């Protein structure tokens, strides 16, 4: 029940934030902040209320009641659909990330949004609610529902509060994700009916559909349906083209949510659904998936370098970074999987920060065109320092979270596909090229002495510092995250033997 309450809190908070605008213009953002904080505290309260050591227990992936939290309420009996939700370490990690980045998003929109703040905050909270639902839903129908519904407030965020080409960008975003969602719906329905043939009753529950024997053309269609839906969201080459536009046009908070959380739903879906539901087919498909991942790493990095728009550059860097996630997931050994999960968290933080930076620059300079920047360090050294920090974080500097992630992914991948690893590792070089180029174009070079711009204020510095500390903490002591995910991965390994996807790392 607590999971429903959590989602409900965010939904109701959204409505309240909307209404609060009528009382006082700026009240809504406080309501919004309070809602997310309360949700976070509520979640932590639940977790601390769990029996001792339950976080270390390996959940049985085939039985939701062995998870940390489990909920099952019958809903649409005609199709065997239930309000079935469950939380394990992975979901917990991602929900916490969602709420934390929600706070960041609220902070980044604090002074940026003037038009209809209340509705803005409401959409923000509803997006968060949808994403939390995605991370918790265990009934495939329910999952699909959250998956689609979270797009609507996100669409509105881009379409209403976006920049000059917001119609195009919002539409592209929505259509890409919807079309791929339809493919997933097809796959889900096919899977459920296949399950009906095997189990004798129609059910959309993840736990009922695990371990079905799936072969042949229909199996491939189902697997690809899931795969495409998730890789569009991830986004992976060649389904990534919605991302640069959406990111560029979205308001800062929208970009933060998109990059920080929404992209992770794709990775989560692959890890939770696509591979465990179709282990054999995924094994056959793994080389292709990894190839796409590696292609994304390189392609994203090259295009990032080609950009003149700050946000577009960061967006392409996301494509590149998410390529590592795809690589890690399909390498399917513990090292790579942990790396992929780590990448979700670290990329969430570092990219959110870079988008905040972009938003701050746009707010001050009214442009995102880096050709019109240069030498900003002179006027805004604090911004420069922050930008530098997150730029080197995104190029994978050891000691910061992204490095741990990328290293684990590549180390795990090497055991499977050494040559592909070599290609993907080129991404480390290209990442350096575009990250430093970005810094050069914005903060270095000859300053324009005519320009006057304010440096980060204390509120912005606070948010930035928090994210820096988070990245350093992830970089030098990632163990808490790894420990949280490990039991889940153990369970998945029990389900999908390592040998199925790839060889295990030799001892």
């Amino acid at each position, binding site marked *: 029940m607590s999971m429903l309450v959590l989602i409900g809190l965010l939904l109701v908070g959204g409505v309240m934030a909307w209404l609060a605008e009528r009382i006082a213009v700026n009240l809504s953002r406080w309501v919004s902040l309070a809602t997310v904080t309360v949700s976070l505290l509520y979640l932590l309260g639940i977790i601390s209320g769990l029996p001792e050591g339950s976080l270390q227990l390996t959940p049985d992936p085939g039985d939701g009641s062995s998870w940390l939290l489990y909920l099952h309420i019958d809903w649409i009996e005609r199709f065997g659909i239930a309000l079935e939700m469950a939380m394990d370490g992975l979901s917990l990690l991602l929900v916490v990330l969602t709420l934390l980045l929600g706070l960041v998003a609220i902070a980044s929109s604090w002074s940026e949004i003037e038009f209809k703040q209340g509705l803005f905050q409401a959409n923000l909270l509803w997006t968060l609610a949808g994403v939390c639902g995605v991370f918790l839903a265990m009934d495939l129908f329910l999952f699909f529902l959250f998956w689609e519904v979270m797009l609507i407030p996100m669409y509105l965020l881009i*379409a209403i509060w976006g920049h000059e080409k917001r119609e195009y960008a919002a*539409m592209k975003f929505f259509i890409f994700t919807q079309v791929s969602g339809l493919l997933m719906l097809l796959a889900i*329905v096919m899977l459920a009916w296949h399950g009906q043939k095997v189990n004798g009753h129609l059910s959309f529950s993840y736990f009922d559909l695990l371990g079905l024997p799936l072969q042949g053309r229909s199996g491939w269609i189902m697997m690809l349906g899931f795969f495409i839906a998730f890789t569009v969201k991830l986004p992976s080459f060649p389904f990534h083209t919605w991302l640069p536009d959406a990111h560029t046009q979205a308001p800062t908070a929208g970009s933060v949510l998109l990059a920080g959380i929404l992209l992770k739903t794709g990775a989560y879906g692959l890890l939770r659904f696509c591979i465990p539901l179709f282990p054999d087919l995924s094994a056959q498909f793994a080389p292709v998936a990894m190839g796409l991942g590696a292609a994304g790493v390189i392609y994203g990095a090259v295009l990032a370098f080609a950009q003149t728009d700050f946000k577009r550059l960061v967006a392409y860097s996301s494509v590149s970074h998410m390529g590592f996630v795809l690589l890690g997931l399909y390498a399917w050994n513990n090292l790579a999987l942990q790396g992929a999960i780590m990448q979700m968290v670290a990329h969430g933080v570092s990219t959110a920060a870079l988008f905040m930076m972009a938003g701050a620059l746009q707010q001050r300079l009214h442009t995102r065109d880096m050709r019109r920047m240069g030498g900003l360090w002179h006027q805004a050294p604090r911004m420069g320092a922050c930008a530098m920090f997150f730029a080197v974080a995104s190029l994978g500097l050891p000691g910061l979270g992204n490095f741990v992630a990328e290293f684990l992914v590549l180390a795990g991948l090497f055991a499977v596909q050494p040559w592909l690893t070599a290609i993907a590792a080129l991404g480390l070089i290209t990442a350096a090229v575009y990250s430093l180029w970005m810094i050069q174009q914005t903060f270095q070079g000859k300053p324009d002495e005519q320009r006057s711009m304010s440096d980060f204020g204390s509120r912005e510095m606070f948010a930035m510092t928090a994210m820096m500390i988070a990245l350093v903490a992830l970089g030098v002591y990632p163990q808490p995250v790894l420990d949280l995910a490990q039991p889940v991965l153990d369970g998945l390994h029990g389900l999908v033997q390592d040998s199925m996807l790839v060889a295990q790392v030799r001892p």
Partner: protein
Amino acid sequence: MSPADFTALLPLLVLAGTATVLMLQVAFLRSVNVTAGLAALGLAVAALSCITAASQAPLQVTPLLQVDHLALLFCAVFCLAGAVTVLLSLDYIQCHGDEPEEYFLLLVLSTMGACILASASHLASLLLGLELLSVALYALIAYPNKSILPLEAASKYLVLSGAASATILFGFALLYAASGTLSFSELGLRLATLDGADPILLVGSAMVFAGLAFKLSAVPFHLWTPDVYSGAPAPITGFLASVGKAAVLLVMLRLFLEADLLRYRILIELTGLMAIFSMLAGNLLALLQSNIKRMLAYSSIAHIGYLLIIFMVSLDLGSRTLAIEAAAFYLVAYTVTTIAAFGLLTVISANQAERENVELHHVNGLFWHSPLLAGLFLVSLLSLAGIPLTAGFIGKFYIFNAAVSGHNWILLGALIVGSAIGIYYYLRVVYHLSRRPEKHHTQPKAAGGWLTRGLACALILGILLLGMLPQPLMSYLQSIL
């Protein structure tokens, strides 16, 4: 006729009575509000009487009508839709000055035609129902006779629909010539004994099918749809698009099942083909349409395409019940959504010089000056687009399940492609709804009294309820099929 027969016919009797009462009332007291109230009341009572009638169902009342639960369910839906249309039209029709009482009378008659179609099991009742529905609609479409667009729409509809009726009749004449019966179930029995390749039979069934396809506006018989939809008054368009389509689809379903036209595999494959083309063409035609009514018209072609899938699914005996269930659910959802969408368009277009044309830019920034209306319109659009939590999604999900269960992969592919295209144009409206208002351009508040608003809210609530808690309706459908 036994008392049971009368009970079973109660909804039709109430409707007929309402029509009579209305005529009498107009003769004595001329008041639009009273007429509308009586009409709405009569329709509501007719809807309620379906519950009473259900106690006798299923029952064959004379060879003409098969009063079963499905028929009664849709009878109730049509009556309610009619009642809502009556109330939504009030605002609209009052602007037209001269005595519009017969408008409501025609609506009641039209609804009655739809109800007869829902339970028709004989050519005569089919013909009666169809013509009652259509002829009343011609007049309704042309009702705002001061402007030329409705006139044009009505004359087009009249000529083409008349031709389609003639085609159906000719086809039936051929079937009759070959089989010697006009009753659907009899026809089914006779067909089993006849030579399937008899050209008279083939041509007859094809002509009946073509006529019905025209009424459904399936590709390639779809050309009239946008013109009629955009020319007609918005509430009537809603009625035509929902009740008009649903009734015809029901009778087609009944004809195909009871007369066992499913035996003509090629005919069913043609429905499949038609479904594919309707889904693709309908959505493509709507793609860049800036006139919202025309856009919805094109999209209704696509929706008919989605519905036609179920005929192919019905070929698979194991999935037949599911297919009918899916069709029924989809029709209910579609009726509610369409009535809501066009009803809201009525309200939104209230301030325009030419009310029949609602362009995209007319709804610019509606979200900011009439948030309630815009919000409701948004929900109905999302339901049409098939976004979760709305009735439209569950309907589409049903059809998905039916098609998967019947292994109709090609149709599914077209369904996905069609829906994908569909998202674009629905979203385009949403985008215009949410555009930031320009500073110097202040739009007057959209009209619509409390009644209209209340109705719209109720309809939207219905859409959301069907979308979130569809189980009761599903259970009911399962129990009656």
